[in-house]
């Protein structure tokens, strides 16, 4: 099998590896880099559990080859917590709203919603539902995920307001 040399940044760390040309990005992350937080739920691009951020855009890591990610910056679920290891606002809201049960779809939900919140800090319920309409969850019935996102967005908005503005 042909090996191809690739260089990627994953969660702000650089990796250089020789990969099989047919190796999917998800398998590369999971097996070559040991980042098993990204999950495969269907391997045909529908369930969304394998979603990662590639140059800040959500992509299905089961449908991309590792070589296609060459030269990219990737963020996986392992890269979403705060630098000190505490949960991000979105992660924190997920636990408070019981937005995960088995946790298997959670990596895809968090990456997809991280993308949403980077673009829209005041999403409506309908916008959140639309954003995760390509992410299947069999446990939660989705509503707690929507609630968590709205909660996280409101906290992020509060944070983004300069403290002087809050005093007034």
């Amino acid at each position, binding site marked *: 099998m042909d090996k191809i040399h690739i260089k990627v940044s994953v969660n702000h760390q650089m990796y250089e590896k020789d990969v099989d040309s047919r190796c999917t990005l998800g398998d590369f992350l999971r097996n070559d880099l040991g980042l098993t937080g990204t999950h*495969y739920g269907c391997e045909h691009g*529908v369930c969304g559990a394998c979603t990662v951020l590639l140059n800040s855009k959500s992509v299905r890591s089961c449908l991309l080859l590792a070589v296609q990610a060459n030269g990219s910056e990737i963020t996986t679920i392992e890269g979403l917590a705060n630098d000190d290891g505490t949960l991000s606002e979105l992660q924190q809201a997920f636990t408070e709203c*019981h937005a995960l049960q088995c946790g298997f779809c*959670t990596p895809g939900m968090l990456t997809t919603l991280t993308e949403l919140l980077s673009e829209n800090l005041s999403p409506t319920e309908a916008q959140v539902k639309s954003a995760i309409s390509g992410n299947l969850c*069999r446990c939660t019935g989705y509503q707690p995920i929507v609630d968590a996102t709205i909660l996280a967005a409101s906290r992020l908005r509060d944070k983004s307001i300069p403290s002087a503005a809050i005093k007034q």
Partner: protein
Amino acid sequence: MDILDSKLLSKQAYIGSRTLRTEDKALLKGLGQFVDDIKLDNTLFSSVLRSPHAHARIIDINITLASQLPGVHAIYLHKDLPLSAQKRLPLNTPNAAITLVMTQEILASTEVCYVGEPVAFVVAESRYIAEDACSIIEVDYEILDATSDCIEALRETTPLTHTIAKNNLIAKLPLSYGDIDGAFSADAVIVQDIFSQNRGSAHPMETRGYLAEFHKATSQLTVWSAGQAPHLEKKTLIDMLDWDPEKIRVIMNDVGGGFGPKAIFYPEEALVAIAACDLNRPVKWIEDRREHFLSGSQEREQYWDISLALTQEGKIRGIKLKMTHDNGAYLQWGVILPYIGVTTTPGPYVVPAMDVDLKMVFTNKGPTSPVRGAGRPQAVFAMERILDKAAKVLSVDRAKIRQLNFIQPEQMPYNVGFIYRDGKAMIYDSGDYPKCQSLALQKANYDTFSQRQKLAKLSGRHIGIGIANFVEGTGLGPFEGATVRIQQNGRVTILTAAAAQGQGHKTTFMQICADQLDIDLDLIDVIAADTNAISMGIGTFACRITVTTGNSVYLAAQNVRSKVFSLAAFLLQCEVSELEMANGLVFVSTEPTRSKTFADLARVSQGIPGFSFPKGVTNGLEDTQYFLPTQAAYCNGTAVVELEVDIETGQIEILNYVMGHDSGKLINPLIVDGQVQGAVAHGIGNATLEWMRYDEQGQPITTNFGEYLLPASEDVPRVSVVHLETPSPLNPLGVKGAGEGGTIPAAAAIISAIENALDDPNVFLKDTPMTPQRLFEILKNNTTSAHH
């Protein structure tokens, strides 16, 4: 000190509170350990070659080319398996009515009976290579006639599912009680119809998967499984591998959803174990989604011919039921699934007489076993739909006809009339069914619905409302167990084999334990889903873990509490009544500096070499309890659904979903709310989307998430849950199961609401899923019957 005394001291801080889950942090950071996340050195990967035919004879299998592929380590056919594994899988739930005990082989020897049946097993350096090898194994099949419809299957001329069988009938189970002839006498109003539900699967987001490791030095075999029932899997492995029961361990770390099908023992688990022992390297198999469509267990395909006899006023007199269950190709849970179905039929209503003719039938389709709801959604669908029909015939309001027939709370415990499958009378332990429906109707503003409907109609909108009630036997025996142990470092460990697939059991057990020992959750560790944690266990299904394991944790923790007090009283030279306990410290109430920590006490209880214990002191600050329920604890609920149908497209939009739900005492309402919301989503899928289709030759034609639709975010509304908490008198915590209640009445209520929205006397809906396309066709044709 007895349990009652110590209970009085317990401060009950956690039980009943919306405690955040301790499972979440690791999962949110991507640090879960699902079976495919476990990376052992030198692991080999595997793939299964499956039958592409629904029914065929295997003439020859040629593996020459495949075995020469670089990176292939082994290829197994049936003849290569150890003799013990050449037998068919054991049937864990035998029943005398079964005429042909036909369970699956690990690998098919001579005949394949459904598309997806395992034929060969390849072990290789990577999953990619194993799949390459599978694609170049040549199998010569003689294709046989297949049967794919369970009603057709009973005709003499229909092909046999198994060539050695006499016919396709697995079992015929007559069940009856009461005076059925009297009930159906000439003065009765009789309403009859035939209802059916489609096949679907549970589709947990994590597919099945196994990893086996053989430790040569100790002859120990360890299997990690994405499963639901560690001890059941262990028992089957012992049989299939003829293995020393003390040298085998099954562990389920994080499991990505279960919902029933993962409670089954599948051939692949034996295969990875056999290969790991042969090759002396860890062997992993991870199912892909297409395989899950083919070989993961399925459910719900049944035909219910139900006749309801009523008085002129609408009081139920009796039910005659003919039910046919499509079992698929192999037996997995015996007769349990259809048996649960038919005995669920009376639900919360007084049904004085019932006569059931139940037939279980083989077909050349994937095997069935319980999927969230386990036969009950079909029973509730048939019962609630026939009640709707009776309401129509008698011109009674749908809520009223139900009210008229409810078992009243003062009738509890209520003997339904059936002899249940455990041989005992089927007795509801508790519940307030009239109140449950009335609270749900209130929350759903049922009284004012007809005004809303009229107003909507004025603006050309079609809205409808539906009601469905259910009663579910939960917390079934025989047992589950737990050990509670105070460690020498002062921490408390709960050990159990009970496995979670997302239900938050660890947090629930910790809450129960924390209250008994007056400690915070952060002092507690849980080891679960490990057969080494406790010597016996059954598994997670049928809403049984909080009842069985939860009560075991409760009783064990209470006993440990007593031991702590006894030992502390001895060491502090005081009476137990003078002591208090808080945060891992036991102290004299009036003199708190006279104290012992849990760590001090645990060390004393571990003993000093050579020193006998004084009288009254026992070894170890631990206790093991197996809670043995005497019978099911019956939960109940009411779904009220208001929705809108777009009659131009057949699209439905759920406007309001109310769930009245009584699962007894709630340990963690946050978790229970999540269970209900998630279970309703599953029910919405059953009612409107999910349809596992086969063609006439038994060839599956929905094998990906494009062809088989799961409910997505925009299909599921917020569910308003109205909790009732009628404690079960049958267990100390008063709990009942809560994992399936949301699913069980969903299809019945949703289909009723759709029909109500159409408001057409000619439309009576009798099956699921009511996809937009099917609804559109019904609207277009608008014939006298909507039955397919």
